[in-house]
């Protein structure tokens, strides 16, 4: 009876599902609400379904789109789905290393960025696009318009002395990933593991944080996408030197009659970038693919540098029909050819006499030979135009994994991966180069260097998941084997019969004397040949338990047992434990139900991590070749101990403690997190001074010293306005970093309680400018304290008893700590507005409370700069540097040259417009424009404060006048989806 009624009451529903642009959506699910009845749409987005008469609502969903409910009606049901927004109500999946978690379950400090949170950056190295996006993550690129420059990345402050400071990259689950082989368009998400408990699962590589990058996967809906942009970089924040007229007027040196703007002579009008990406994706829910191709062509601001590269990335996922296994393959090849920039050419452009011509007036076909002026003067235009220097490179990264679902709750997965890169560098100086004519007897010279690096990874994990009532467990265990090998060779020769051969026929060179073993300043390199090879292994066993009770209490505990071949015989293996706890307090019954607070989670975590990013074989009793000595008329290369042995050598240890809260406020209009961390790095790796005798070398590579970083980080996202046509969202990050170098000795190694840093170069050998010293913050400037200028234009300084004395009579122990080059605060603010199809975003970024030593002003910013050299405009006039008129104190390093480094940058402005596609074959078109580094608010007087790095052990000072000009980038791009 009921059945009959049911049969009788059936009805037919038809319709079409499209996306917001009107393009059909195949494979979308159409289900009757609260029933099992349902179907999927066909290729044209259409569906046909028999539903009971009682059905009132259809639920229509598709991956990547917001789910909609529509009433059942008699006519065709035509539904358009909006793309899924970044609405936090949607589950955000966070990669935590060897697995993923719902963001709500995360108990450690992890910042999740989706691909679209990244800034568009027209240049090398996609990680630039993360700049300012993650509180506590410092991305420093002092030369963004150099097409070959990569940024330095540092998380939560400096963590080591001589071992690596950069984070571990994990790309698609493979640790040690190569970020240079990434197309920004391929990035799905980036998770930054800041807390030690999260990164401890990566053991000896976790101390500097872990950045997990996941590339885009295939989709069940086919699409194709093209993205292309063109950008122009124009110099900004220029360092200004005297014009030829001013140079002559100030009697800086001989007037050779020409008027040369050396900056313009070594520069292109603009640096140029173009990049094109094509992506195809498709498949089904079980088997899908995405393949992406990109091509980039870039030129730098200097006359020589450029880079052309093309690459591809394929991701293929295959799941068996019965869900028994999933196999995935990623393959990413990339080829590049680049010519190197010359940073020294810009140094020359500052210091060269502007009355010198570029070309020899007597022989206009030839460049002018220049060897006077400032230290190391030469003709930079000639260098850029005649000296070849660059590389041809290849990357091939692939990995494959096989995941076997042993039971519904248990899976095992094996991952194999390999990353290879090889670079074939070239260099050539022709015989007509005036440097070769005057310094190398007119011999041309060429060299080629081949370097190859391979990394192999094998990982095997098992994962068991179980829910028992309110308890849920997830247990993971695994094994990891990593092998790293580097090898290479170099060859060089001189005196080739023709300059036309450049570096392509080294055998024809006629110069057959070996390289001198103690090259003197200016010594030339004769024919050279060399090769090297070294390798290392890393092996680990690891496990982790994630547990939660009613999504209210969370616990994660992990342990990694890891060893590296690099460690000394007595210290091969170490344990890296971690534990973290989370408490979603809003789920407690006692917690008052307030409208404005939707979610509040308290977290605490502790983890021990390591750092083993240092050279191979450093613990061993190695002998190597030194110079030559004669024995009975025969020349022998002598061999002797090349380092002091240290069989105790081990990883650096970091103890990481983190307290944090995550919150959702005002009905998810404001979300964010706050973290407080303390990281103590112990057994710092580095060269330590040891007594000679009995040691043969004055330093031993050893574990000595303790450094502490602590700080507060805040990250906020707000949906300020959400109207029909208008939305406004904002993001804010802020970080404070406190650093202290706690101790610099232990039972074995003692006596060196400080280390000089940032040695300043000639002329004058002013000595080091900073000290890394027990009890101090890194980046502490250690120099004389200035007491102004006396009547004769001398720089006066305070001696240790407080008397004012001329700078050139001060002694070493009159030096004091006078400032610090490490920013205390950093912050960023982003705002994104959309109005109908227009979107607009503006991003500010800044660093505060730190000093920069103005190296340029110190060397060439005063009237007493060596004659014949050009100087900064600030050397004359009323400025403080113009007052230093007495050459006696030229080399006195003092805080007179310290300036506030604080800056705020209008870093990124993006405007985009989404066109409605005029033709059926195209689903969407987006046109966008970006301006980067538009304006810098700063009191720093010479150039862009960001061209002085604040990462590393000597922040806030450049130890060379070489630099790459700061630029403003204008970019226009087009994205089309098919």
């Amino acid at each position, binding site marked *: 009876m009921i059945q009959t009624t049911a049969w009788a009451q059936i009805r037919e529903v038809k319709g079409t599902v499209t996306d917001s642009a009107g393009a059909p959506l195949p494979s979308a699910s159409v289900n009757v609400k609260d029933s099992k009845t349902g179907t999927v749409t066909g290729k044209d987005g259409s569906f046909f379904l028999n539903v009971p008469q009682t059905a009132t609502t259809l639920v229509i969903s598709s991956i990547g789109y917001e789910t909609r409910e529509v009433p059942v009606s008699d006519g065709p049901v035509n539904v358009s789905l909006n793309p899924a927004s970044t609405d936090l109500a949607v589950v955000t999946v966070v990669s935590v290393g060897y697995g993923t978690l719902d963001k709500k379950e995360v108990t450690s400090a992890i910042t999740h960025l989706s691909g679209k949170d990244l800034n568009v950056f027209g240049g090398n190295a996609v990680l630039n696009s993360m700049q300012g996006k993650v509180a506590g993550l410092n991305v420093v690129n002092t030369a963004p318009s150099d097409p070959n420059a990569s940024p330095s990345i540092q998380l939560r402050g400096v963590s080591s002395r001589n071992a690596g400071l950069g984070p571990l990259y994990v790309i698609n689950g493979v640790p040690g990933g190569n970020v240079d082989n990434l197309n920004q368009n391929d990035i799905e998400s980036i998770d930054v593991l800041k807390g030690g408990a999260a990164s401890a699962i990566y053991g000896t590589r976790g101390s500097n944080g872990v950045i997990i990058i996941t590339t885009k996967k295939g989709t069940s809906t086919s699409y194709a996408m093209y993205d292309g942009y063109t950008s122009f970089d124009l110099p900004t924040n220029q360092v200004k030197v005297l014009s030829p007229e001013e140079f002559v007027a100030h009697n800086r040196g001989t007037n050779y009659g020409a008027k040369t703007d050396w900056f313009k002579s070594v520069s292109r009008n603009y640096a140029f970038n173009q990049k094109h990406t094509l992506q195809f994706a498709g498949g089904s829910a079980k088997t899908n693919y995405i393949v992406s191709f990109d091509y980039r062509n870039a030129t730098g601001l200097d006359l020589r540098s450029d880079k052309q590269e093309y690459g591809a990335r394929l991701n293929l996922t295959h799941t068996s029909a019965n869900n028994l296994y999933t196999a995935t393959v990623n393959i990413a090849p990339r080829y590049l050819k680049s010519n190197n920039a010359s940073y020294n050419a810009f140094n020359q452009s500052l210091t060269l006499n502007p009355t010198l011509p570029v070309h020899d007036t007597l022989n206009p076909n030839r460049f002018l030979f220049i060897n006077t002026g400032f230290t190391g003067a030469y003709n930079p235009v000639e260098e850029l135009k005649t000296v070849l220097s660059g590389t041809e490179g290849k990357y091939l990264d692939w990995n494959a994994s096989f995941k076997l679902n042993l039971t519904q709750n248990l899976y095992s997965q094996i991952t194999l991966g390999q990353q290879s890169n090889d670079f074939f560098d070239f260099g050539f100086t022709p015989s007509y180069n005036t440097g070769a004519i005057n310094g190398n007897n007119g011999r041309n010279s060429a060299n080629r260097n081949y370097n190859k690096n391979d990394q192999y990874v094998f990982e095997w994990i098992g994962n068991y998941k179980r829910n028992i009532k309110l308890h849920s467990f997830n247990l993971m265990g695994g094994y990891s084997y990593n092998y790293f090998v580097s090898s290479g060779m170099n060859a060089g020769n001189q005196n080739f019969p023709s300059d036309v051969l450049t570096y392509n026929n080294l055998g024809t060179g006629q110069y057959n004397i070996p390289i001198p073993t103690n090259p003197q300043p200016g010594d030339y390199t004769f024919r050279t040949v060399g090769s090297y090879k070294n390798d290392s292994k890393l092996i680990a066993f690891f496990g982790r338990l994630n547990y939660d009770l009613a999504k209210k209490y969370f616990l994660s505990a992990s342990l990694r047992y890891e060893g590296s*071949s690099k460690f000394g015989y007595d210290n091969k293996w170490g344990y890296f434990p971690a534990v973290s706890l989370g408490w979603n307090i809003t789920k407690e019954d006692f917690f008052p139900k307030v409208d404005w607070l939707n979610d509040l989670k308290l977290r605490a975590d502790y983890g021990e991590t390591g750092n083993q990013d240092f050279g191979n074989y450093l613990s061993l009793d190695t002998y190597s070749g030194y110079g030559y000595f004669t024995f009975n008329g025969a020349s022998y290369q002598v061999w002797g101990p090349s380092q002091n042995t240290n069989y105790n050598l081990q990883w650096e240890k970091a103890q990481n403690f983190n307290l944090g809260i995550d919150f959702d406020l005002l009905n998810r209009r404001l979300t964010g997190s706050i973290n407080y961390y303390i990281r103590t790095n112990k057994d710092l790796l580095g060269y330590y001074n040891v007594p000679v005798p009995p040691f043969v070398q004055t330093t031993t590579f050893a574990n000595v010293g303790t450094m502490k970083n602590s700080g507060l980080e805040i990250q906020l996202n707000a949906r300020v306005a959400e109207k029909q046509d208008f939305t406004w969202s904002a993001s804010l990050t802020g970080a404070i970093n406190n650093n202290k170098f706690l101790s610099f000795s232990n039972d074995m190694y003692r006596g060196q309680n400080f280390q000089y840093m940032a040695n300043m170069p000639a002329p004058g050998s002013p000595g080091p400018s900073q000290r890394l010293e027990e009890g101090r913050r890194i980046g502490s400037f250690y120099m004389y304290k200035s007491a102004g200028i006396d009547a004769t234009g001398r720089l006066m300084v305070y001696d240790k008893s407080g008397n004012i004395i001329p700078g050139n009579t001060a002694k070493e122990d009159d030096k004091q700590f006078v400032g610090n080059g490490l920013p205390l605060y950093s912050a960023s603010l982003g705002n994104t507005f959309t109005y109908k199809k227009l979107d607009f975003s503006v991003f500010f970024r800044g660093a505060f409370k730190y000093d920069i030593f103005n190296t340029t002003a110190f060397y060439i910013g005063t009237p007493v700069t060596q004659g014949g050299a050009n100087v900064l405009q600030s050397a004359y006039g009323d400025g403080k540097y113009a007052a230093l008129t007495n050459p006696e104190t030229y080399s006195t390093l003092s805080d007179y040259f310290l300036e506030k480094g604080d800056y705020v940058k209008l870093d990124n402005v993006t405007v985009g417009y989404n066109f409605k596609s005029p033709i059926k074959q195209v689903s969407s078109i987006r046109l966008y424009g970006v301006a980067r580094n538009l304006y810098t608010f700063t009191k720093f007087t010479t150039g862009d404060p960001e061209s002085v790095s604040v990462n590393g052990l000597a922040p806030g000072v450049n130890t060379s006048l070489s630099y790459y000009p700061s630029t403003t980038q204008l970019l226009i791009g087009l994205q089309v989806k098919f």
Partner: protein
Amino acid sequence: MSIKTIKNKHMKYFTNKFFIPLYGAVVILFAGCTKLDETLYDRITSENFLQTRDDVIRDFLRAFEHAYWTIQGGGLFYAQELPGDQLMTPNRDGDWFDGGKYQRAHYHTWTIQDDYTSDMWNALFQGISLATNSLEDIEAVDINKVNITEAEKADFIAELKTLRAWFNLRAFDLYRNIPLVTKVKGETGMPPQATPEETFNFIEKELKDAIPGLPVRQDLGAAGIGRWTKGGAAALLVRLYLNAEVYIGQSKYAECAAVAQDIIDGKYGSYQLESSWYKPFDYDNAASGETIYGFPSTLARTHWHYSGDMYWWMGPHQAQNFFGFTNFGGMNTRYALQPGRDVDSVEYAFSMGKPFIKFQRYSDDFRLKKYKNLGNSQREGMFLYGYLPYYNNPSQFVKSNRGYTIFARDQVGWFKDTPPGEKPADKESNMNHADDNSGIWVAKYPIYPTGDPNAIASAYAEIRLAEVYYSLAECKYRAGDKGAAATLLNAVRKRNYPAGSASLYQSGGVQLNDQEMLDEWGREFLVEGRRRTDLIRWGKFNTGAWWDKQPDNDDHTKIYPIGQNVISLTPGLKQNPGY
């Protein structure tokens, strides 16, 4: 199909076909993939190093190669010259100020922060440690395995001990209170400092023990350059005894004279003085009968005395064009002779220093000529002064990097473009007030032009037979035998002057007095890295006055302090008195 049936099917499948091989794989992996030994490809450890005779020679030579470097490395050259009364490194218009380091060297006001007070220690003890390491390697070697004879092994050991004595003697001279090292492998702490007497006796014994096992010069021939011989070890005894009074408060001039006489008499091998002044320094000096110990040099390989810490930076910046030798890039103004005259060209009244005037006192000295490359590996003169024409274009003159043409003179001040003979208004002349015209430059070892087959080919003559003559002369002089002293000195000096020159000392030695003895040491051994030792032995180092230098308050500076970087690392290491 329900989920349950799928699960059961899977379980069965895995139990039988998958899990067993899986477990097998686990066992193999865990056993095989937990090894973390390092594989070396492009380097060697001591365990597998010494396999052949050549390996032993390479190991043997390690400390020798380092020894050659130490003639100038770590400040070891300038620490012997700049505190003396001959060389200077003034602040030249901002160049060579270097935090006042060289001025403190001049004024004897160095501090333990001055890098060379640590660097010299490290350089010398690195040599001592390397020699000891090689000694330990070679003493342990199985002669049959590496195919050397017992005699060769004994020779290697004797030569290494002599070399170690040479390092020890220098460390003793500079620091006096030093540790005595006889073993380094496996050691982690520095041996305690020995008393000067213990060190003196140790060096004396090591040398005396080594002499019987060492070769003699004529057996090795010209190819023996760089090898320690009986003559070399005996000459080190001469150095030790000559300075014994300074070192241990007991004079050993009689012992010194005996050994020196034996060397001259050929008891330790056959040696002859050269007949021209430049021959001991010329490209073929490896074969010279005057070279008792020398370091072999070639243009393409090692040539430390032609480095920036030594003779290459003993000329104006562009002086390479004066020599016509452009392979090494620019020269540098680091070391020049202290002035004998003020800015108005009036000779200073003090008796010490004034090295160029001391040469001019015997005006027919061949060495006084301006240096000139004559072609075909020949040169004349030893000094650079006045205008310096380019070798390849004599109408062009060497200029300062500051733009003015160099006119080098025996004066210090700011002359810049002031023409020769004109008196500048600025009368200041001191270590902080010099330009590139200030001071006369020395080219003792020839710098032949680029392309000359013998450019940069001179061995560095660390011990010359002339030193033995001068040492013996000094012993005779101190014993009151001025006549014998004059004869010995003239035996060397006669090559500096025309035949029958009045510049030779009269027989009987009436011209000889303490000042003349010291002046003559200064002439013969100018820029050879020993002036400080000679001044100390003659008691003038702390009491003498010379250009921009007053006598010291006390004599604690006659030995150097142990530098901060050394002393802070070694608890228990006692600083030298007065620092």
